């Protein structure tokens, strides 16, 4: 990070020097600027060589849910715009209070009028043999995340020491990144400082179900390894192999600098209610301080401290009174919330709700008619409400009977309006825990013109980090603006503010004919889109303008551009179409010849009843296709968002149970629909009887033959989320089965969003909608079918044959060859 000129000659303002470019240091400066943007000249020193980011969002970065850019709080522009000098990557190593200067490791010496120490905390490294081996790290900053990602890249095993919030988030991220993870926790239950035994046990079960090994009561004796970490040995002698060890056993306030400077330090740097240390010109804030005997390791107290600090700096002192904290675990799919004191004790009463089948556990601890603690597992929707009641010390005696069922129920009626629930929150109720934003701040930000979710995120930052409060912010928008709220589905990608459905509608309504035209008319934010929106636009135009739109090859993924599937070594696999899964000696001979002629290292029978030839070089593809074409075979589109296979069983021709000619119908369906481009891949199957050997009920369109006709099923999927089909209807004849299939495909092509399979599409629009269009509306069905067949009249040219004849040869041949000795060929 470059060193900016620190002081203009004429600048005579008081100089505020901040040690620490983290969440506390920068938040304090933000609060100060909000009160008086010009009073102080500000210089920030940071140990890490980067701008200010949201440290509590490192877990989602590790888990791959966020990128570093997403968690930056203040980018370089913020420092520039506010005239803040940032010296990053060069930590302060000494404070001279007499001379009122600070000195960095690099030798930069800067004088101050007011000094703010926001050094945060250091990870606690347990003093066991081997703690300094390469491969043993903490989980504290972006560099640690980088080390973990590198390790995950190499695979292997990781041991996380510490089953608290941070350790479990690290373990979750590493596990998602493919490492075999073992968590060692000294105490008998996980997160014992935030969760009671019951919730800790539920959490352990859930994490183990995700493949992590959790050892509680595990006391680390040493970390072993020769030159680098190789494993962790427990005191009971157990040895756990590890390529990476993450220590997440706790943090300690980082006080060395303050102590060396002679400031009063207890567990942390001691401060008064205005965050002033034992030296009136030195302030401190965040995890490094001790206030009223308390030190904090969570983010929420920091927001309160920074407000009090800034009030003091502009001489309108308010005074910090300490914080009550709540905790949420950022492990996606596992909802855990805790707040306050749940240790029980005299006069404490527990209200508990358990719903074992839903995996829900709620416990609210009440003392003297006031909530003193809450632990929620599995359903944390009411966390904010309990926390708000707790902080306010509100009398809950009137609510007591229904308290545990949550805010909606307690405020009258099981299905109360979620907006009413948000409306009932007080102005200082916290909406966004990640960024410390209250309801009052969100509302005032909306009132000042932030009329969309993105605008709110861009201004007061509510819901801009982990996003778990997005619903609350949306409700606040709706409450504040009434019908003016700009809501709607998510945008296509960061290149546009329009959603998929808007873009499609406008393409048709305005008769747009090319990708550049769409980008121009719909105000695209990037010059030529990105790898998300370009393939989608290409498809939408292709679907809207059959026979007219010229496909943009540069907006297709490589597989669709090369009509083969790229493999991890850069070679391709080739799947010729086998109609209905039928083949013959001529085709098999041609495939065998191709395999030998081009040295394909593997041939595989696919799940879709075809043969996949692996290891073909890009340059050889046209020749391979020519050979396959010569035997009568065409592209199987195994690479495309297109019709893939039509799987069949042998049916009435051979099978003693078969009721209809399932093979014959399969071949006819495939002949009708091959070559069509779709929002996503599309699979068909036809089974000859309800024994369903062709697995038709997990396909996008499945036919199950019965004695009296054909059952038509839609929306099945055998992928990550297995979904059985919904029964669309039953028809009597083969021709009807074909007609309904064509109409269904066209409806999917016209209405589903790009990269949306039929299963999520049907769940989004509802089966009733599909039935209304395909079953109930005969003229509509016929129109859909006609549009599909019209579109097919342009798309059933074998792309392989065109390439084999030399079309688009530039995709396959290098532009030039260079032999270092012989120059260019």
């Amino acid at each position: 990070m470059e060193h900016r000129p620190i002081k203009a000659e004429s600048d005579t303002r008081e100089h505020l020097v901040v040690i620490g470019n983290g969440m506390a240091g920068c938040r304090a400066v933000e609060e100060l600027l909000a009160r008086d943007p010009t009073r102080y000249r500000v210089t920030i020193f940071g140990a890490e060589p980067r701008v200010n980011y949201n440290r509590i969002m490192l877990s989602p970065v590790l888990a791959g849910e966020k990128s570093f850019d997403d968690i930056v709080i203040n980018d370089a522009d913020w420092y520039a715009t506010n005239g803040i000098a940032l010296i990053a990557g060069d930590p302060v190593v000494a404070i001279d209070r007499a001379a009122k200067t600070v000195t960095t490791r690099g030798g930069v010496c800067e004088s101050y009028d007011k000094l703010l120490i926001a050094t945060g905390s250091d990870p606690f490294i347990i003093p066991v043999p081997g703690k300094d081996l390469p491969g043993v790290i903490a989980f504290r900053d972006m560099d640690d995340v980088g080390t973990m990602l590198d390790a995950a890249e190499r695979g292997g095993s990781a041991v996380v020491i510490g089953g608290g919030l941070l350790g479990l988030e690290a373990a979750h991220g590493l596990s998602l990144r493919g490492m075999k993870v073992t968590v060692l926790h000294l105490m008998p239950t996980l997160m014992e400082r935030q969760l009671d035994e019951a919730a800790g046990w539920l959490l352990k079960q859930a994490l183990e179900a995700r493949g992590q090994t959790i050892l509680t009561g595990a006391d680390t004796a040493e970390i072993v390894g020769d030159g680098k970490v190789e494993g962790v040995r427990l005191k009971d002698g157990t040895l756990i192999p590890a390529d990476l060890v993450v220590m997440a056993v706790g943090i300690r306030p980082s006080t060395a600098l303050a102590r060396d400077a002679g400031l009063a330090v207890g567990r942390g740097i001691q401060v008064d209610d205005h965050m002033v240390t034992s030296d009136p010109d030195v302030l401190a804030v965040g995890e490094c301080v001790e206030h009223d005997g308390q030190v904090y390791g969570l983010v929420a107290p920091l927001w309160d401290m920074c407000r009090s600090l800034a009030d003091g700096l502009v001489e309108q002192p308010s005074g910090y009174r300490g914080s009550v904290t709540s905790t949420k675990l950022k492990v996606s799919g596992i909802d855990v919330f805790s707040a306050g004191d749940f240790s029980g004790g005299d006069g404490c009463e527990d209200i508990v709700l358990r719903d074992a089948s839903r995996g829900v556990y709620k416990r609210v601890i009440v003392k003297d008619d006031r909530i003193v603690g809450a632990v929620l597992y599995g359903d944390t929707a009411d966390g904010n409400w309990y926390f708000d009641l707790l902080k306010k010390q509100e009398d809950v005696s009137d609510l007591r009977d229904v308290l545990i069922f949550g805010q909606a129920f307690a405020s009258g009626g099981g299905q109360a309006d979620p907006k009413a629930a948000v409306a009932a929150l007080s102005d200082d109720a916290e909406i966004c825990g990640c960024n410390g934003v209250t309801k009052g701040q969100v509302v005032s930000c909306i009132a000042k013109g932030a009329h969309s979710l993105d605008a709110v995120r861009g201004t007061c930052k509510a819901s801009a980090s982990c996003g778990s409060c997005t619903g609350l912010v949306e409700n606040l928008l709706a409450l504040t603006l009434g019908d003016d709220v700009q809501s709607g589905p998510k945008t296509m990608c960061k290149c546009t503010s329009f959603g998929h459905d808007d873009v499609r509608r406008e393409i048709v309504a305005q008769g747009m004919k090319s990708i550049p035209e769409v980008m121009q008319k719909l105000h695209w934010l990037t010059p030529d889109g990105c790898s998300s929106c370009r393939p989608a636009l290409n498809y939408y135009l292709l679907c809207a303008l059959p026979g007219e739109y010229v496909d943009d090859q540069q907006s297709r993924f490589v597989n669709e551009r090369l009509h083969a599937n790229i493999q991890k070594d850069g070679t391709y696999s080739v799947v010729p179409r086998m109609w209905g899964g039928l083949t013959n000696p001529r085709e098999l001979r041609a495939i065998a010849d191709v395999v030998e002629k081009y040295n394909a290292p593997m041939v595989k029978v696919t799940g879709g009843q075809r043969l996949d030839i692996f290891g073909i070089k890009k340059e050889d593809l046209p020749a391979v296709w020519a050979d396959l074409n010569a035997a009568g075979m065409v592209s199987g589109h195994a690479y495309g968002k297109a019709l893939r296979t039509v799987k069949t069983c042998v049916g009435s021709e051979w099978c003693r149970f078969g009721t209809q000619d399932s093979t014959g119908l399969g071949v006819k369906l495939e002949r009708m629909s091959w070559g069509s481009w779709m929002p996503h891949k599309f699979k068909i199957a036809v089974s000859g009887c309800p024994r369903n050997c062709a697995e038709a009920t997990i396909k996008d369109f499945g036919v199950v033959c019965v004695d009296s006709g054909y059952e038509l099923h839609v929306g099945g999927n055998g992928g990550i989320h297995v979904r059985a089909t919904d029964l669309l209807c039953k028809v009597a004849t083969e021709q009807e089965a074909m007609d309904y299939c064509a109409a269904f495909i066209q409806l999917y092509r016209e209405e589903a969003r790009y990269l949306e399979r039929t299963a999520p599409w049907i769940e989004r629009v509802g089966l009733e909608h599909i039935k209304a269009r395909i079953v109930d509306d005969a003229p509509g069905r016929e129109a859909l079918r006609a549009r599909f067949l019209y579109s097919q009249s342009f798309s059933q040219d074998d792309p392989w044959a065109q390439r084999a004849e030399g079309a688009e040869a530039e995709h396959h041949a290098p532009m030039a060859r260079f032999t270092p000795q012989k120059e260019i060929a």
Partner: protein
Amino acid sequence: MTTTAEWLDIGWVDQIPVRGSRTVQVEGGDDIAVFRTAEGKIFALLDRCPHKHGRLSQGIVHGGAVACPLHNWRISLSTGEALGEDKGCTPTVPVKIDGGRVLICRASTLKAAA
């Protein structure tokens, strides 16, 4: 302009599709990917993503970047650096255009492809 001690002439600019790429095969080494952006700028990189060695020449070119076909890493065409959260760098090869011909730096080509 033809091949010199310093520069290799690899062909016409128009041989490279707009928002697309072609490759130069280097005997005994990795290919060089030559890109042409929507604005008509030409860039050359080693045809190898820093992540899992995907062929960048097969990716979607947008703005001044290419998306690797294997895992969608975005690589800057001008610096070879991975963009966003990803970390890594692909060697770049200096390019110049002379009379519609594309020339790439001989020394960098040899070094990158070695």
